[in-house]
């Protein structure tokens, strides 16, 4: 199985739409009634032709000359019909919007949740912006179709049926005439739309390139400035802007062409109706009113042709949006929560066992092979090794961010895959390298570890970690805002917040990926102090980038090229003259102690 988000491009537009709506039944709330109302509203479109015909034949050209009173009666009846159909249209629209917006919101939320349920591997295989698009703009492309285009398609089809029926009732010859003119158009609609949607796909692609180019001038501002490559960057942007503009123009030309055909057809149809109609009239088979009604009905054919490509286009857009959203929903999380059927672990000291564990990224070589290791409760373990040695993979398996390809990871004797997420995440907490903070106050970020914690408890946590002095020095203490991604704090301070968050979560097994980024000495000391408080009395596994962490550990696990090659206490390992001794020597040199 690949880690990527699945693609469902093979499904047809209708197929995609049907499946999408099935997955989001909110879209169909009250759909039958809405459809009924929409059909009533459609009838409104033929009121004018009928009224004109009735008024002309019975009133204006009646057998007894002009009778205005008949016309007035016809008009009154028609007015009533207009009011009824207008009300029906209003009700249709409101219901449509309500159903569409409800469905869209449900879909957004569902996709959002699913993104979080995907494994780390899948999440990181996709660009962040692309994931966001899947729950926002991709959902929005569906909204156009759901709000009006879908119903417009139904209404247009209804309009064609009603108009044709009426036409045939007046004169089957004229109905045939009109259809002979319009049929070729309806038949070419699909082909035309395919070209139009191909052109718009090109526009979207160019827009992606455009955004990429623009982002270089924003995200890479420092680099651009430092290397004085403004000219080159602007050139790249200008090219992207121009390519986007040209493609958009090309698409617009296609749309303009297809739209104009509808108007042209109306001209042809009018001419044909007059010729055929007059001949029929001369032969006594048609009244003037009927001929006029037919002329009033012709525009009803134009609109479906003109909106036809647009509706089909929206259909394609919506299908494209659906495909991308369904791509998320259809991606099975490769690390799945066993849910209520799973085991809940009781709280208390935790022990871990890796039994013959191997792992390789999808389509890649083994990065971890045959790891057998037991970690005793409350022991403090450091994991060391060079980049690519498998140490990070080891902790990802330990926290079940990934599942082993073979073998088992057992916590308190239970296979991790059988442990309920709710229970697992409560007992096993990982502090990643970069302690991500949300754009909120420090208190809210730390409370993320335990949502029901009071301010007093937060303060206590900081005090217990020896960080009270740090909090006191912040401008608004606990309630200092941390800024976007926590950027108002330094990297080291973000780590402190992440440690406090983990402390508050109070796990039994703590997994730390030590940050490598440089931190000023005062913060460095604080971090060390906080780590000490955090790991005390718990089982802890730390990916160590610092020598001191390994020195202080109860046990050091040394990884090299995907294998656990050494284990033991620091002093013993140094004496052994193996991989660890070599790493240690290099560290010491770097520390200036060689």
């Amino acid at each position: 199985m690949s880690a990527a988000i699945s693609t469902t491009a093979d499904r047809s537009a209708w197929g995609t739409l049907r499946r999408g709506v099935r997955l989001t039944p909110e879209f169909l709330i009250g759909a039958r009634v809405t459809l009924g109302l929409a059909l009533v509203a459609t009838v409104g479109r033929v009121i004018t032709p009928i009224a004109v015909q009735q008024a002309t034949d019975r009133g204006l050209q009646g057998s007894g000359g002009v009778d205005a009173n008949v016309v007035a009666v016809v008009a009154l009846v028609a007015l009533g019909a207009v009011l009824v159909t207008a009300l029906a249209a209003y009700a249709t629209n409101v219901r449509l919007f309500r159903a569409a917006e409800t469905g869209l919101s449900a879909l957004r939320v569902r996709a959002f949740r699913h993104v979080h349920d995907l494994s780390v591997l899948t999440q990181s295989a996709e660009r962040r912006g692309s994931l966001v698009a899947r729950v926002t703009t991709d959902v929005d492309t569906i909204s156009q179709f759901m709000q009006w285009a879908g119903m417009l398609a139904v209404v247009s089809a209804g309009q064609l049926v009603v108009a044709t029926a009426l036409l045939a009732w007046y004169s089957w010859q004229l109905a045939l005439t009109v259809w002979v003119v319009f049929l070729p158009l309806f038949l070419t609609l699909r082909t035309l739309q395919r070209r139009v949607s191909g052109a718009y796909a090109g526009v979207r692609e160019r827009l992606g390139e455009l955004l990429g180019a623009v982002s270089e001038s924003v995200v890479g501002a420092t680099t651009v400035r430092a290397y004085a490559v403004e000219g080159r960057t602007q050139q790249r942007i200008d090219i992207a802007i121009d390519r986007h503009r040209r493609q958009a123009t090309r698409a617009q030309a296609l749309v303009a062409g297809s739209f104009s055909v509808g108007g042209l057809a109306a001209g042809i149809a009018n001419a044909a109706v007059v010729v055929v109609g007059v001949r029929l009239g001369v032969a006594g088979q048609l009244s003037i009113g009927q001929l006029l009604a037919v002329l009033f009905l012709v525009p009803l054919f134009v609109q479906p042709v003109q909106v036809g490509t647009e509706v089909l286009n929206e259909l394609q857009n919506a299908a494209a949006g659906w495909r991308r959203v369904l791509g998320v929903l259809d991606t099975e999380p490769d690390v799945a929560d066993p849910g209520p059927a799973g085991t809940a672990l009781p709280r208390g000291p935790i022990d871990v066992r890796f039994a013959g564990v191997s792992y390789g990224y999808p389509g890649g070589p083994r990065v971890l092979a045959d790891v057998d290791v037991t970690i005793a409760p409350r022991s403090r373990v450091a994991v060391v090794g060079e980049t690519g040695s498998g140490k990070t993979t080891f902790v990802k398996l330990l926290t079940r961010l990934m599942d082993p390809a073979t073998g088992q990871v057992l916590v308190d004797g239970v296979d991790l895959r059988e442990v309920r997420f709710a229970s697992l995440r409560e007992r096993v907490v990982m502090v990643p390298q970069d302690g991500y903070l949300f754009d909120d106050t420090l208190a809210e970020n730390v409370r993320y570890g335990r949502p029901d914690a009071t301010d007093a408890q937060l303060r206590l946590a900081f005090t217990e970690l020896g960080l009270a002095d740090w909090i006191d020095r912040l401008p608004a203490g606990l309630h200092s805002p941390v800024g976007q991604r926590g950027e108002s704090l330094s990297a080291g301070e973000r780590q402190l917040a992440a440690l406090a968050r983990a402390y508050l979560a109070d796990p039994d097994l703590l997994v730390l990926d030590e940050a490598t980024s440089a931190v000023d000495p005062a913060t460095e000391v604080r971090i060390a102090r906080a780590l000490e408080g955090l790991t005390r009395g718990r089982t802890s596994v730390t990916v160590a980038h610092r020598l001191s962490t390994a020195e202080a550990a109860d046990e050091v696990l040394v990884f090299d090229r995907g294998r656990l090659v050494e284990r033991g206490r620091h002093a013993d390992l140094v004496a052994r003259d193996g991989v660890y001794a070599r790493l240690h020597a290099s560290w010491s040199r770097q520390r200036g102690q060689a």
Partner: protein
Amino acid sequence: MTGAGPDDPEVAAALRSVPPSHAAGVLRRGLAVLGLGIREEPGIFAVATVGSAVFGAATVAEAWAVGQITQRVVVPAFQTGHVTTGTLAAAAAVLLGIGVVKALGVVARRLGAGVMQYRLNARYRRRVTRQYLRLPLSWHHAHPTGRLLSNANADVEAMWFPVAPLPMAVGTLVMLLVAAVAMLAADVVLAIVGFVVFPALFAVNVWYQRRLSPLATAQQQLRAEVSGAAHESFEGALVVKTLGREAAETTRFRGVSDQLRDVGVRVGRVRGLFDPMLEALPTVGVLAVLVIGAYQVQAGLTDVGAVVQVSYLFTILAFPVRSIGWVLGELPRSVVGWERVAAVLEATGGLAYGAAAPASTMPARLETSGVGYAYAAGRPVLHGVDLVVEPGRTVALVGPTGSGKSTLVSLLVRLVDPAEGAVRLDGTDLRELSPGAVAGSVALVAQSTFLFDDTVRGNVTLGAALPDAEVWAALRLARAEGFVAALPHGLDTRIGERGTSLSGGQRQRLALARALVRRPRLLVLDDATSAVDPSVETAILGGLQEAELPATVVVVAYRRSAISLADEVVVVDGGRVVDRGSHEELLARSAAYRDIVTAYEREAAERAALAADESGEPR
């Protein structure tokens, strides 16, 4: 570089043409934005509008023709029971010809409007991005990335969105005028009915805009919030996952998403009422024309043709009248887009350049005298920094976080200019050097690495014509040769946003190679190897020393390995140079310095002590 920003006369004129929000309402300002668009693209606007007017006139002509044909061909034919082929053919030819003219008009209108819209989009995107490249970094730091990206994309698009229906709306106005004349010509009384109905249509439009525009603004705002919430949550996905907060995050997201839904439903209510009203009004008009027309015909005051013609006009005008509504409806969004775009275009403060050329090809001499800098007024981060780095020397800047090191670095490479004092390269003030001269002599490797969406080669050379051998040499020196050689296409492998992803350490090494390949006379490393494995870092820094670059080096460092390579160490604290000397001298005499560089040792000692404390406690 071509002009941008308020200095560019065209941009300045554009900025002047739209009144500020306190001086005019949304409608006036929106129309001013449209006026600006018309002034900037007059030719294509004329083509589109003429196309639209032709279409409009042809539409009216169609009604007139239907009326005339009814009166002159249909009614006599039906009454007399015969018709000549010539008359019929003429009638057909007129209708057909009108159809062709209408089709041509539509093409001119639609294509013209599109071309106009896309040209304006492209022009303002160019202007906005020119500003991005021109404005100082302090401006960049004050504006979130997402905001700047949407300025160049969504905001420009929103600004010119009403341009698409604009020619049709203008054409419709023409059509209404022609229709009014046609109706008056057909029958005065019937025309009066029209004069009631069309203003009513317009009133409905205005009502609609008034109701919709605040909702549309709210919708736009909420869309951004939904997107922001998703973005932040996904960025913190690992934290969410490792703390098991998926459900809580979903609840939070549902909150904003449902707000967006509620506004959408309210939009639906307004639009839901608007559409049927727009459809019903012309129908009511037609019915009124029929009734009044019937009494007129009965009284012998008019003929059937006039009645037919006027009622047909109502039918065909009902739809295009909406285009006026489309334009008005998009105006509020357009104004919001304009405001956000104008905020970028108005920003001033680009760097000014002199004409001096850099002096020598030898290692540079760097000097700062009395340099001060503040990000916010009254809160200086550097004061009176005097620093001299002799050619070929390596100086380490050491100091706690927030001491001003990175700010000093950004002054040395002229990312920003000092508020007071001067930075000199070989005796020349950086501000007097010609554009590109600083970058030609000085290379910075910043704390965070930025890679372009380009190949490895492109990321190292940044477009400079350099032979591969030199690129490889720089990669070797940056210890990046190994992993680059292992990439699927070597130097031609695409990296960055849409390419192969690299680790933080690999990215830093590429950034280093990017600096080295230019053979800078002054190399500034701002903690540039922080994500590199310690053993690799030692190798890199050792390699730089062994290579004996013809460069002066300034390095911001924490790790002792990096510091120990420097000829001299400058200690920065609280925005001042507090001490300087060799590593050994400083260790011996400066407590602050000892504090910093012995952090690792103290940390280790502290841990050992804590471990000893704890060993007595039960586990």
